[in-house]
């Protein structure tokens, strides 16, 4: 997702003079093209994220559209007060872009994991929280962010994830989930970089004869409640999947919507796949971490299969 983000940003800057790129001293060589084409609109803000976010807000209040970018924990929790006060309270149209969300940087250890950021940013008034499922959704999210006048948080994975969409998703809009597969027995709802795993799970379940709907719930706030209502009305099992804590993430947002709307748990169950309420303390890469946490596609399929057969509830 990362390289496509840099490429899309450069293209957008070609036609939008408001766009300014702020980096927290990461992305070595990543922004070379941007810097070459727009040298007066690229700023390495150093390892000083509080200042970077305040600077972004000041720029946004002066008519610019700054993108503040660094590794997820540092562009979210490290400068949360600046996001809350400088960006959200001022309704400053800052685009916050995080790289390495969830367990994308599993190998770097818990300092670099980000499994709480959705909860923090989702609770801030006025903030859009978008977790693209692949590189094309990243491009679409950036374009959409520039089309509106409010703060947006775009939560990316890393580089080299599977490309899923054949191109820019048609009619991409914040708050409108993308139906990746149609089905009426199971609905798997994915946010962010879990999309490949969820599609893998859907493939397995389909091989076992199940009709599986897959939603890419790329926007966690605002939530696509119409898509949720239809899924809960239609499907026997509904499951959410995210590289995030069970507290405050997409699954939690869906559970809140269920409670607020009086939507009952489907007959087969409502399952949440998440990273648990714990730090992931083992060394190892993302695929290993997912296996340990039950987030691999085949593990999702197995648990859904169990729910479909009524042997256990989520």
């Amino acid at each position, binding site marked *: 997702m990362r390289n496509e983000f840099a490429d899309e940003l450069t293209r957008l800057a070609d036609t939008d003079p408001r766009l*300014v790129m702020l980096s927290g001293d990461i992305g070595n060589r990543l922004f070379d093209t941007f810097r070459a084409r727009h040298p*007066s*609109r690229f*700023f390495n*803000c*150093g390892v*000083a994220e*509080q*200042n*970077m*976010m*305040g*600077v*972004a*807000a*000041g*720029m*946004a*209040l*002066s*008519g*610019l559209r*700054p993108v503040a970018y660094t590794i997820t924990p540092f562009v979210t929790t490290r400068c949360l*007060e*600046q996001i809350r*006060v*400088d960006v959200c*309270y*001022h*309704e400053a149209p800052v685009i916050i872009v995080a790289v390495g969300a969830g367990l994308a940087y599993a190998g770097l250890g818990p300092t670099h994991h980000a499994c709480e950021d959705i909860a923090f940013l989702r609770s801030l008034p006025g903030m859009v929280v978008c977790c693209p499922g692949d590189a094309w959704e990243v491009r679409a999210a950036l374009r959409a962010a520039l089309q509106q006048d409010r703060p947006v948080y775009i939560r990316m994975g890393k580089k080299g994830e599977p490309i899923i969409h054949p191109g820019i998703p048609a009619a991409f809009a914040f708050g409108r989930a993308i139906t990746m597969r149609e089905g009426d027995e199971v609905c798997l709802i994915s946010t962010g970089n879990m999309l490949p795993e969820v599609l893998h799970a859907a493939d397995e379940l389909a091989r076992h004869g199940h009709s599986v709907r897959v939603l890419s719930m790329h926007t966690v706030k605002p939530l696509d409640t119409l898509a949720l209502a239809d899924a809960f009305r239609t499907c026997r099992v509904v499951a959410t999947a995210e590289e995030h804590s069970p507290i405050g993430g997409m699954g939690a947002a869906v559970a809140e919507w269920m409670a607020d709307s009086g939507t009952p748990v489907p007959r087969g169950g409502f399952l949440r796949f998440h990273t648990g309420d714990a730090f992931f303390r083992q060394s190892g890469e993302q695929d290993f971490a997912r296996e340990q946490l039950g987030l691999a596609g085949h593990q999702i399929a197995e648990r859904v299969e169990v729910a479909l057969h009524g042997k256990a509830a989520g």
Partner: protein
Amino acid sequence: MTVLTTSSRAPDEAALRTIAAKLRGRVIEMAHAAQAAHLASALSCCDILAAAYWYALRIDPKRPDDPLRDRFILSKGHAATALYAALAFRGFFDPAELDTYCRNGGRLAEHPPAHGLPGVEAATGSLGHGLPMGAGMALAARINSQAYRVFAVLSDGECNEGSVWEAAMFAAAQRLANLCVVVDYNKWQATARSNETLALAPLRDKWAAFGWNAHEIDGHDVGALAQSLAAIPACGEGRPVALIAHTVKGKGVSFMEDDNNWHYRAPTADEVRKAHEELGLA
């Protein structure tokens, strides 16, 4: 009150002193009416506000959103009463609205709000936010090819915040000559002497070491303040300027000066009367 602006003319110091005294008198009334805290912090910066709003700033209260206006950020947002009084007296809104300070349903909260109040460039109150935002505004001027200055008034206690020093290094690296910090150095923070809390001194040297043109100044000398603020360039690259303004907390009222109880205490009606007498407003 007459506007004394245009830096081509020397500041009328007597007139600026009168304005500062009126600001202090109004601030004291507001603290009494609302029984609200932070009076001494507001009194500390009235001369800075008078010099800025009645001399140095290129602003038009009728056009508070003019893209080319100078930006003034009271980063020490707890001194909001002084800012409110200055904005109202300067014509940004009706001075009668000052009576609504802290009242239910009003616009004048204990800290300056985001949106909704003309002349307030940034919502402050959480310390350490005004300078990074101001740096962003100053850099935006360069990107947008606009000529305006950005002023941020910080308290000395605020310089405890790491974000202040992040912004100081950033502004120096970007050579934001159109950015000016005034540190209202009254030697107190909320509950203790500032230099006994964290080692601020030598404060001028610190700002200089962070890449700023740093000067010490008498923070109650309206003439010197007016000329120093007016001298900030609106464009071009160079070192940002830090004015270390030596001030007295509670300035202008003998029984409040340098007495940190007035960080939280609100005056009685009798104390308001005595203070107004001392300020020559009775």
